[in-house]
């Protein structure tokens, strides 16, 4: 039994910088490899609808005739299935997280 088991840890913390960051003044740095936000590039897309068919939550909708691609950000779980199946590589997951969604409407491109 020890009375001073915690002392070493406490002394160490007293002389080192805080581990926590001053969010939101200091924004969080996204880690490379993180699945943050799904980004769509219209230029390469051929509207083949594969991403919409394979999306496990049904967050994506593609209209081939109107050439419209849309996403419901509240349904998207950033699993990355659409990125894997996209034949034209027009979808990519970037590490930085998007700003919170405040409305329920779909984002269309």
């Amino acid at each position, binding site marked *: *039994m020890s009375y001073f*088991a*915690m002392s070493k*840890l406490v002394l160490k913390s007293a002389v080192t910088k805080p*581990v926590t960051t001053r969010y939101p003044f200091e924004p969080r740095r996204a880690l*490379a*490899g993180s699945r943050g936000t799904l980004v769509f590039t219209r230029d390469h897309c051929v509207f083949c609808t594969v991403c919409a068919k394979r999306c*496990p939550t049904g967050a994506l909708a593609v209209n081939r005739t109107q050439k419209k691609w849309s996403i419901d950000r509240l349904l998207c779980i950033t*699993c*990355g299935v659409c990125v894997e199946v996209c034949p034209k590589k027009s979808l990519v997951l970037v590490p930085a997280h998007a700003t919170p969604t405040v409305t329920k409407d779909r984002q269309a491109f």
Partner: protein
Amino acid sequence: MPRTIIPFGPQHPVLPEPVHLDLVVEDEKVVEARPSIGFVHRGLEKLVEKKDFNEFVYIAERICGICSFIHGQTYCQAIEAIMNVTVPRRALYLRTVWGELSRLHSHLLWLGLMADAIGFESLFMHSWRVRERVLNVIESTTGGRVIFGTCKVGGVRRDVTPEALAHMMSEVDRIEHEAREITEVFLNDRTVKQRLCGVGVLSRDTAYELGCVGPTLRASGVAQDMRQLGYAAFGELEFKPVTRTEGDAHARCAVRCEEIFQSADLIRQALAKLPEGDIAVNVAGNPNGEYMARTEQPRGEVVYCVKATGAKNLQRFRVRTPTFANLPALVKLLQGCELADVPVLVLTIDPCISCTER
């Protein structure tokens, strides 16, 4: 002495998730505890009839926010066994590594909650500081912090680069070093010991008879660990189940402390042996058959029963989670304890209510 019923939960500072206990007390002694669950039931088992069996991995992972990866892994193992899929060895090793990382962060989370329950706030913060390091490793290798999303039927969805492997190795060493400073306090500090030693003793026979699993069972001296079945890459790695014989709250804490180092060791072994090759195989067709998969969650044994009939949707899916198996032990532990010890005892079984209610 007249008996009084004191309601405990579903909202209580010590409970991260809702469970309700009716505590029948005589003065300050608990005579009986009657649990009631069902506050966070989401009907996930029923969803199996609506979702494609490949897509259901994402739902299986969301059964629990802490042991998410192992849920997905167990589901995949069951489907792979039904469909006779041979998973590439590299995928099995990566599953092992991620499974052990999830055990590391779960145990560090629990240690923090325990410190919080006994009023040791600074120790709570320090435990979660180390956990943050584990979460960063998980995020950089899988892309998610608590929902990994990397397991799929037939393998894994992400590979690890050699640089990421080296980074993981050095981080595991650092995590182990920092965790040792914290577990030192849990194992030896006088305050912690006075609060936990001799509280809620569960004898070896009682623990076995009540069907306890995981650290709750191992703290009572039964060396039962589902990883000994050798699923994923555990058959090729060396480890021995961590056991204690005291069976009290401190023993359950000590088992989890030692399992942190066991997990770190297993990760190092798996990364050192990581074979080259593919990370997934193509799975064609639909499953037809029935299988029961068992794996070791941070909280104990989880049993998955999957029944498929050759369609893309499964017919039946059933999960027996570790907390559900440990609830009878909790009721037994609470009989005759002091009212002030109830929060600590509830925490010692590491209750995961979302798992239990699915």
